[in-house]
């Protein structure tokens, strides 16, 4: 009995449910993806799946296109989100939390529902769906994920620093360029991670917003995985995407920790 109490009261014990969850739903699938990617249909070891990717210009083209869409979406989110976060964090323009709530509110609604609503909006106004609709939809879906981290970082900037810069002779523009911008970079990096990474692998949103006309990398993976004879090829494509996402987030993660080290006192 005593042993049981001791076991329960240990902090590490509390992690066990999540560790089981992690093993079943994250680690195991990852291993399976890795294994399947190096197997052919009948279960023998092969690298043919990767060769197929490199040899098929169609797949590479889709991949590059997906990255381009993700970059443009991220860029649009920064373009719209940064000024929004700046205004929200500035007490002179925004005195209540209501505005912040309004900006963040879309995060409360499921992303698929929002996308469906966007589709209806395009239908009602008679604007054709397609690439434009896709960019609009993605930007609309992911904008709050850009605004919130930037807003948070900006709220944490010590107001004394802004006064110190003014005191040393900086006008509003200089204060922004030399103090606010560099100190808000950790927020921008988090925002990029939260927008760029999910947009690369999106497929449902692109299918809905383009009437299945534009296929992103995520769609190709999904199509291949759904069919049992191309499942291994799909696994290889997943692995490639995972690696690329891993590499980008490793680099940006590195940068983030460095910047935020200086950004937060």
């Amino acid at each position: 009995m005593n042993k049981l109490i001791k076991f329960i009261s240990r902090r590490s014990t509390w992690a066990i449910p999540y560790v089981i969850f992690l093993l079943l739903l994250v680690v195991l699938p990852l291993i399976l993806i890795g294994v399947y990617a190096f197997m052919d249909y009948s279960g023998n070891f092969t690298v043919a799946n990767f060769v197929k990717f490199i040899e098929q210009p169609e797949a590479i083209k889709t991949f590059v296109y997906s990255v381009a869409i993700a970059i443009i979406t991220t860029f649009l989110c920064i373009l719209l989100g940064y000024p929004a976060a700046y205004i929200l964090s500035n007490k002179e323009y925004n005195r209540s939390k209501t505005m912040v709530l309004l900006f963040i509110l879309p995060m409360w609604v499921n992303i698929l529902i929002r996308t469906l609503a966007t589709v209806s909006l395009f239908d009602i106004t008679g604007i054709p769906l397609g690439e434009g609709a896709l960019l609009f939809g993605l930007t609309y879906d992911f904008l709050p994920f850009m605004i919130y981290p930037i807003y948070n970082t900006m709220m944490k900037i010590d107001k004394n620093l802004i006064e110190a810069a003014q005191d040393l002779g900086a006008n509003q523009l200089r204060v922004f360029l030399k103090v606010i911008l560099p100190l808000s970079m950790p927020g921008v990096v988090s925002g990029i991670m939260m927008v760029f990474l999910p947009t690369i692998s999106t497929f449902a949103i692109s299918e809905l917003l383009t009437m299945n006309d534009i296929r992103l990398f995520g769609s190709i993976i999904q199509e291949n995985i759904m069919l049992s004879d191309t499942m291994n090829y799909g696994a290889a494509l997943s692995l490639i995407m995972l690696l690329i996402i891993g590499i980008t987030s490793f680099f940006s993660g590195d940068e983030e920790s460095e910047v935020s080290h200086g950004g937060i006192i």
Partner: protein
Amino acid sequence: MAENRIEPGGNIIDIKHVSKWFGDKQVLDDVSLYIRKGEFVTILGPSGCGKTTLLRILSGFETASEGEILLEGADITQTPPHQRPMNTVFQRYALFPHLNVYDNIAFGLKLKKIKTNIIENKVRRALKMVGMTDYEHRDVNSLSGGQQQRVAIARAIVNQPQVLLLDEPLAALDLKMRKDMQMELKEMHKTLGITFIYVTHDQEEALTLSDTIVVMSEGVIQQIGTPTDIYNEPENCFVADFIGESNILNGIMIEDRLVKFMDTEFKCVDEGFSNNAPVDVVIRPEDIYIMAHTENAMLHGRVSSCIFKGVHYEMTVQLPNGYELMVQDYNAFEPESEVSLIIKPSDIHVMKKERTCNTFEATIVDDTHIDMLGATFECMPHGLEKDTEVKVEVDFGKIELTDDKEDGMLEGDVRLILYKGNHYHLTIVTDEDDYLYVDTNDVWDDGDMVGINILPEDIRIIKN
């Protein structure tokens, strides 16, 4: 109250009738002050006295609601902070965390588009001045509090401002470090020849550093003078109590050079008061001579406590007539011992009383009620018309304070406590920002919330 020194030429800063409101709350009330070129001026006062607001108006982060600020005769009241030739050393350092020591110090110079090699020289010199040579490439977050403060000082002085504003720059440092930095700041002031305006709540710091001290309380300048003036000739009870230790007593000026307090007549050196004028008397505890009981001394009493303070002993002496005096001496007299006291005439400092009772504006409601201080009070029948404007007087001792603020007609908080030898004199600020002065034998703490009651028979109505 804001008494000004006579204005000579060569002032670097003139503050003229500056008032500041934050919403309904007035934090500065008609402040006028001039600062001479090269002077080390300290603005001293307890927290919430308006000293930081005054500094922020000088640096441009706040704008005066009324009045003007002149810099060498030119009006800078509306000039934004980045165009003022002044630099600030902030209380919390406010160093840029994304820049190293060098770039922090070079920040202002780079904005002025100065050549890189000149910037380098200037930064080096500034670092040397604050004793931080070789720290150029250090991350500011890796520095200790004292080092960060030095960098903050270097960042300000490197721009060669005409005026250096220091906002409690040493408040976050420990005692030993603070003492060292005080000396260094004084040295720096001498070497640079820049005007220093220093804000602090630490009276000892103010006495050590300044050429001129400006004592503030409740948004009003209480006294301006040299450290010696402020210490030896405090203008009112607030200054006497805030600077150093003091015995403050109620007294009556019987005639020139004769004052009565603690039921005893004393010779003094003050004159020019009207006969029998009520006054406040200040005696510094170190100015009272204490000795073993002897018949020919002025006062006799019994020691009730004796504490060793490092250099001297601080003793409380209980007099037979109920008064208590604080006495400091190098010799200790044990508690319960019978002692005698002597006070020299020149050590008795007599100040004009600011007021002898509370005075309020009031309006008649009906024969037994009046409106004042934002509430309706019952009063004795007076036979005046409704809506007549009158003055009301209430004696200090006739205001009743209650622990539970719900029990009072009014609510307020205790702001200033003066011990007057045998009772406490409190300043109470009501929720409506009215000031009440109360004499009481009960012990209250600074910041206590109290309920306030005044009995009908204690309300004296005076027709305008």
